[in-house]
């Protein structure tokens, strides 16, 4: 460790030493700011996670049951499944591991200026494209510029907005006739090529999470020669080659013959088989050994899987959840009604019933125990009498009749809703469930007055609060607005010091508990199933699957 540590890492190291910073948060910070992961683990006094479960063996085929989607435009992927196809052939600049720690990939090392405005990315020099060309800064820059172009339609844009992207009025009108906002690089030199293996991102403002953002799943590094398209035979720096792809049926990958720059791959062939959305069909396939893995487990199949001796359940706690959220209109305009909703909910029962215990009970504020700044403000116990009293106080002594909108997939959401609805009924909140197909739900998710919405895992509590609860935020589906909350949130976002953030977070959490618009019943564990002969596989919170890490040991 000869290189100079970033000042924040030094500071964090001190905080960690003083016990102010949790190990995990320290690790995350240190690695984010350019400390190589093993070194960071060392600094934190932890053993790096053992990658090996015995010696990897070479050879064999692994089949996974997963939707086979169209994968021709990696930069606009909006499904993890597509990215899981793409990532076998293509690499990311960085990789965030199952431990929430971001590590180098095509970027071997990175550093940020103290103000966090300028990030320098040092690329690996030993990477070649499968078709023989050397991987250089031009390749990286081409990909970066492409995803940051509004016309590409990539969701990466959102992560770099404000940092190197700026919004402007493009003079066009949107569908409703309002002036339309587009984004563009704030400066011509925003993405700067320093030399053949060094790229500099010159931001207009600070951004802490650039290495993590580089692992946003559409940001796959394509060969510029493929012009943004991807398919059978496409060039890549990754461990496999795509040899067959039929949407809705299957994809086949074979191990790269000229050797991969990283570890692996061990298996010869990786296949993705589309089993449809039906969870039962997936289990049937697993039972009859048509596949070795299922991409994502469904709760309804857990009982079956638990009985299968050759199958193991892989699970990891996350900040994934789904929240029952209200709009500030009758009867939910009264915070007592919203409180009653929370008091009426038995989170442990929801966890047990809907997720078969895989996860943690929610605490009605959208900050999960896996978040570094999570403040434990106590678990709100179910109190039906209190809920009733609150309703009565709010002027609904006979209870209220409401309708909650939900979607049928994934299945646990509808189970959770059903369980909560039964619980609420006891408190006098009589709820009708309106199930919309997912497509329809996503057209209306911000519009329905009372809905049950999935929220994906995000690394920081402040991120999710900023996205979903800040006044006027695009995804503030609850139309919630609380000046004090906004103020505190901004304050929290200003602290790099996690303890300071945690202190503010406690206040934010209490505000949410008191008058927030949501019921957060559970923190979901993400899980899937694999045959026990599959070794080396650890489930990622985002269910990213890297076939290069696994091997077969029957």
């Amino acid at each position, binding site marked *: 460790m000869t290189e100079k540590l970033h000042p924040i890492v030094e500071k964090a190291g001190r905080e960690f030493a003083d016990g102010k910073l949790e190990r995990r948060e320290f690790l995350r910070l240190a690695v984010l700011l350019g400390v190589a992961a093993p070194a960071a683990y060392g600094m934190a006094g932890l053993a790096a996670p053992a990658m090996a479960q015995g010696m990897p063996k070479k050879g064999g085929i692994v089949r996974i049951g997963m939707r086979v989607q169209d994968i021709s435009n990696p930069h606009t992927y909006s499904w993890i499944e597509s990215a899981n196809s793409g990532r076998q052939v293509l690499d990311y600049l960085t990789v965030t591991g199952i431990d929430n720690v971001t590590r180098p990939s095509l970027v071997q090392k990175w550093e940020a200026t103290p103000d966090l405005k300028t990030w320098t990315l040092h690329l690996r020099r030993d990477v070649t494209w499968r078709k023989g060309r050397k991987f250089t800064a031009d390749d990286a820059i081409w990909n970066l510029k492409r995803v940051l172009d509004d016309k590409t339609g990539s969701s990466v844009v959102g992560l770099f907005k404000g940092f190197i992207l700026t919004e402007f009025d493009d003079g066009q009108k949107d569908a409703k006739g309002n002036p339309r906002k587009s984004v563009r690089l704030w400066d011509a030199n925003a993405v700067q090529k320093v030399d053949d293996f060094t790229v500099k991102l010159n931001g207009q403002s600070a951004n802490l999470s650039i290495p993590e953002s580089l692992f946003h799943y559409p940001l796959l590094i394509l060969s510029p020669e493929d012009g943004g398209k991807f398919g059978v035979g496409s060039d890549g720096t990754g461990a496999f080659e795509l040899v067959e792809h039929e949407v809705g049926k299957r994809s086949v990958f074979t191990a790269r013959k000229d050797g991969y720059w990283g570890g692996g791959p061990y298996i010869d062939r990786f296949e993705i088989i589309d089993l449809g959305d*039906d*969870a*039962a069909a997936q*289990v*049937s396939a697993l*039972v009859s050994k048509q596949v070795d893995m299922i991409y994502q487990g*469904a709760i*309804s*199949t857990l*009982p*079956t899987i*638990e*009985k299968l001796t050759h199958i193991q359940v892989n699970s990891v706690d996350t900040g994934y959840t789904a929240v029952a959220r209200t709009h500030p209109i009758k009867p939910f305009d009264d915070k007592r009604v919203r409180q009653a909703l929370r008091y009426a909910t038995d989170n442990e*029962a929801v966890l*047990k*019933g809907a997720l*078969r215990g895989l996860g943690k009970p929610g605490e009605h504020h959208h900050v999960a125990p896996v978040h570094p700044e999570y403040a434990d403000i106590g678990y709100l116990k179910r109190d039906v009498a209190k809920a009733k009293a609150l309703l009565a106080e709010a002027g609904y002594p006979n209870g209220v009749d409401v309708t909650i909108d939900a979607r*049928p997939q994934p*299945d646990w959401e*509808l*189970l959770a*809703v*059903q*369980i909560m*609805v*039964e619980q609420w009924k006891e408190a006098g909140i009589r709820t*009708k*469930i*309106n*199930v*919309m*197909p997912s*497509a*329809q739900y996503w057209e209306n998710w911000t519009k329905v007055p009372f809905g049950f919405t999935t929220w994906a895992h995000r690394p920081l509590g402040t991120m999710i609060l900023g996205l979903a609860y800040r006044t006027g935020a695009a995804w503030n589906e609850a139309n919630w607005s609380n000046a004090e909350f906004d103020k505190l949130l901004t304050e929290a976002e200003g602290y790099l010091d996690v303890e300071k953030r945690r202190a503010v977070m406690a206040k934010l959490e209490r505000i949410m508990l008191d008058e927030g618009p949501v019921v957060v019943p559970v923190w979901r564990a993400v899980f899937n199933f694999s045959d026990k002969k599959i070794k080396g596989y650890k489930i990622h919170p985002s269910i990213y699957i890297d076939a290069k890490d696994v091997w077969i040991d029957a």
Partner: protein
Amino acid sequence: MTEISHDLAASRLASASLVGAEAADAGPLGKVYSVVTRSPLATVGATILLTWCLLALLAPWVAPYPPNQIDVALVADPHPSAQHWLGVDHLGRDILSRLIWGARTVLTVAPIAVLGAVMLGIFLGLLSGYRGGMIDVVIMRVGDTLLAFPKIILYLIIIAKFGASAFNIIAVITLSSAPIIARIVRGVTLDIKNRDYVAAARMRGESAFFIMFVEILPNARGPLIVDFFLRLGYTTIAIGVLGFLGVGLPPPDPDWGGMVKEAYGMIFVWPHMTIIPSLAISSLVIGANFLATGLREAALDG
């Protein structure tokens, strides 16, 4: 008709008028009873249907538990037991209670949907058959277009667009069945409108609507009653299928098809959760079909 059938018809007439005499004493219900009991198939069918109707009607009293009462603890051993005769489902809800309450749903939605279709179909069919001409052409053309849609696809398109609710399911079934019923009614009308009693009604100046609804319709009731029960069966299947495909009646209220779908993933460990509602829906449809087949046979026997 040959003379031998005259010979037979004469003796049948005797027994038929015997039945008729009974019927006159017993009223319309008695007549239905006597027709149903004449066919063993119809008797079995009617018994099954009646049993479900009774269970549905008495659901609040006969169902041992509230249908949506969740007891997560029970999921540890969901199999049939003394407390839960048919076991519980994956949320610990009593399956028997859900079946009984589910009967209520299906026995409301299906008959309403079929009745809606029958009423619309009767109106259009009578109009089309009796009036003929352009009205006939237009009605049949529109009907044909609707019928050209494979049913399940029509259901999917409409329900995906407008959402799954009892009302939408009823509407979609009404819409897709009405043209078929209109066809049946039109056929019968074309036949009956040439009967002499219709001519007689015209001769005395009855209005077209009077002739359609008072002179023609009552004589089409036989095939319509048979069709009603057949259609009740198919509609029950359709509702079940929609439930199974996940576009059925919204939870938590028990919907048999939905129950199968929800538990289908657990068929390997807890088959009772899928097999029992499957049996329930099958039995109801079998009941309706047996009754329809029996009634048709009884009607053919005269």
